[in-house]
């Protein structure tokens, strides 16, 4: 059922959503907008389409404690310090980020199930938001994502002076029960919401990157794409930083490290990046010795290997963060153009 709330009452809604659980939403921190925990003083920025990092952080954090060890004399004690059991809501998730969870589910919920991720998925409620003003860096539609009707436990729209709230799943309905008294019935406004959706789709259809074709990017093209002579040219300016992988909502590679605290060991996992020289380092060295090979790996994974292993699902959602943030403006859309079909040129 569609509900609505006056924009002026958003503060009350956040207050209510944050009762008994964490509420994460886009916040202004020193001029930069990123998801963060809500407090009454927090500067909420729902007007900013793209947060710097995605909502992935709450399901697969950049660093996560696994276990700690403490040594006293000859005894070693093992200390459980995982914190994946907290209930939370992440609010204002755009369609691209909402879809990225499907990609991550494929990785972390298949056998063997990642118990950290699973716990966070079970404890987290996703409140998504339609994109009122898509940007030129967006290309979600080529992956079949509808910016006007994102997935999520609850889907919201800001139209005029109202927030529209549409529960979609059992989790979403349970969340709605806790805030329902703030809302009024909006079932009469369905044409208004539909019109807004139409406007969003119209803008998306005019975005330059949304006309890219993915034709030819599938498992059957593995050898052809892998052996393309274009990789060296595409990667020649890559500085080998991890920006694209860390702002990416679907990149899921991680490393496990021990941090020596001086009086014990904290074992944690942290995001890794295929762009780094020590990625998948083995006794004999990195299997991908040059930046060309590392660069190729990232895009082959997203556009060829992942769909080949996951029923055609690409591990890119077209959020465009890498497009906006790469220090030298090289990104997946330029790769798709260079290696794809003629129509893209």
């Amino acid at each position, binding site marked *: 059922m569609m509900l609505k709330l006056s924009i002026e009452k958003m503060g009350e809604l956040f207050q209510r959503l944050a009762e008994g659980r964490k509420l994460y939403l886009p916040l202004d921190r*020193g001029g930069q907008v990123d998801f963060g925990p809500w407090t009454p003083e927090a500067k909420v920025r729902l007007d900013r*389409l793209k947060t*710097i990092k995605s909502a992935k952080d709450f399901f697969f954090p950049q660093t996560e404690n696994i276990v700690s060890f403490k040594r006293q004399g000859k005894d070693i004690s093992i200390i459980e310090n995982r914190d994946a059991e907290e209930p939370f809501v992440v609010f204002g998730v755009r369609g691209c980020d909402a879809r990225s969870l499907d990609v991550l589910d494929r990785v972390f919920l298949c056998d063997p199930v990642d118990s950290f991720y699973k716990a966070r998925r079970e404890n987290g409620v996703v409140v998504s938001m339609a994109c009122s003003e898509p*940007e*030129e860096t967006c290309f979600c539609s080529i992956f079949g994502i509808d910016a006007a009707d994102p997935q999520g436990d609850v889907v919201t729209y800001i139209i005029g002076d109202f927030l529209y709230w549409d529960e979609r799943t059992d989790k979403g309905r349970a969340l709605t029960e806790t805030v329902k008294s703030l809302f009024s019935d909006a079932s009469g406004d369905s044409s208004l919401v539909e019109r807004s959706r139409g406007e969003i789709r119209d803008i998306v259809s005019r975005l330059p990157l949304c006309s890219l074709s993915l034709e030819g990017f599938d498992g059957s093209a593995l050898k052809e794409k892998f052996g393309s002579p274009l990789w060296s040219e595409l990667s020649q300016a890559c500085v080998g930083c*991890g920006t694209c992988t860390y702002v990416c909502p679907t990149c899921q590679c991680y490393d496990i490290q021990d*941090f020596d605290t001086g009086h014990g060991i904290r074992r944690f996992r942290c995001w890794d990046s295929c762009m780094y020289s020590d990625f998948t*380092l083995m006794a004999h060295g990195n299997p991908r010795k040059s930046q060309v090979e590392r660069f190729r790996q990232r895009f082959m994974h997203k556009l060829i290997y992942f769909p080949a292993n996951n029923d055609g699902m690409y591990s890119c959602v077209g959020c465009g963060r890498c497009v906006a*943030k790469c220090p030298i403006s090289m990104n997946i859309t330029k790769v798709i153009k260079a290696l794809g079909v003629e129509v893209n040129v």
Partner: protein
Amino acid sequence: MRRVRDMMRSRAGELLKDGAVTRVLGWKSGEFYYDPTPSFFDTEESLDELVYNGFSAAMLSKYLIEATKKEGRVLVFLKPCDTYSFNHLLKEHKVDREKTYVIGVGCGGMLDIEKLRALGVKGIESMEELGENLVIHTLYGDKKFARGDVLLEKCATCKGLEHKASDELAVPDELWEWETSDRFARVSELEGMTSGERFAFWRGELSRCIRCNACRNACPVCSCNKCVFDNPRSGVIAKANADTFEENMFHIIRAFHVAGRCTDCGECSRVCPQNIPLHLLNRKFIKDINAFYGEYQSGESVDGKSPLTEFRTGDVEPGIVHERGGA
């Protein structure tokens, strides 16, 4: 800027044709006006894609480390500020001067796409640089900005429009010049804080760091063959740490390592996806070096020693830290 680009294309074409250079290092046009990518060009025809505009900020000097290891001579386009880093790389014998041909390109100040986004620009379709103005056509209407309001930080505090190294210049007469501000003003403000305030300031700024290493990798002075942070046995591997203070140390260590060498090119702050003002750490070192050893600008020339690699009997003693009120 379009004049400069035309001069660049024509000279690069001639030099390639003559065989004076084997390849050309410049910027290639992207999907949008604001996203040129550093690129090598090895044929005259490919130069059609060579662009130079207010978003050609990515510095090309560092690419010469690898490029000059290859056969042949590379033509490189350097903006005035890029020549400082070029000289520094020559000074440290990272780049072979004989294998380079430098065309110094005129600069009208580089523009900051992040500043434009913060000012609400979205849905960009095209841009035009018209003298001192920037006109942006977007899906949500046209917008006009004065260049001076949307310059990159490194350009707002520009060191000057003189090229410190070049074989020839591509600088038209009528390039836009702008008023620059004092690059140490913000450092002085930070110095005016109490140590507690300053600690809180940096903890806040650095808390946004995602350890992407873009600052290090773009830095023309960070040119170690193997960075300590890339050595898994160092215990300080280049990934996010479980401890946030350890994380912050990455930037402190890097600032120390580039002290006396940093040319203040500002690439670290430009490439930071989190907009952390990393240049302020380096500028603090530059300001102190100037105060302790006399004015010094890294990369101004290839010759001579730098203050931290030269010993003079009059050099300050470590006790200066206490004298200035430090711990």
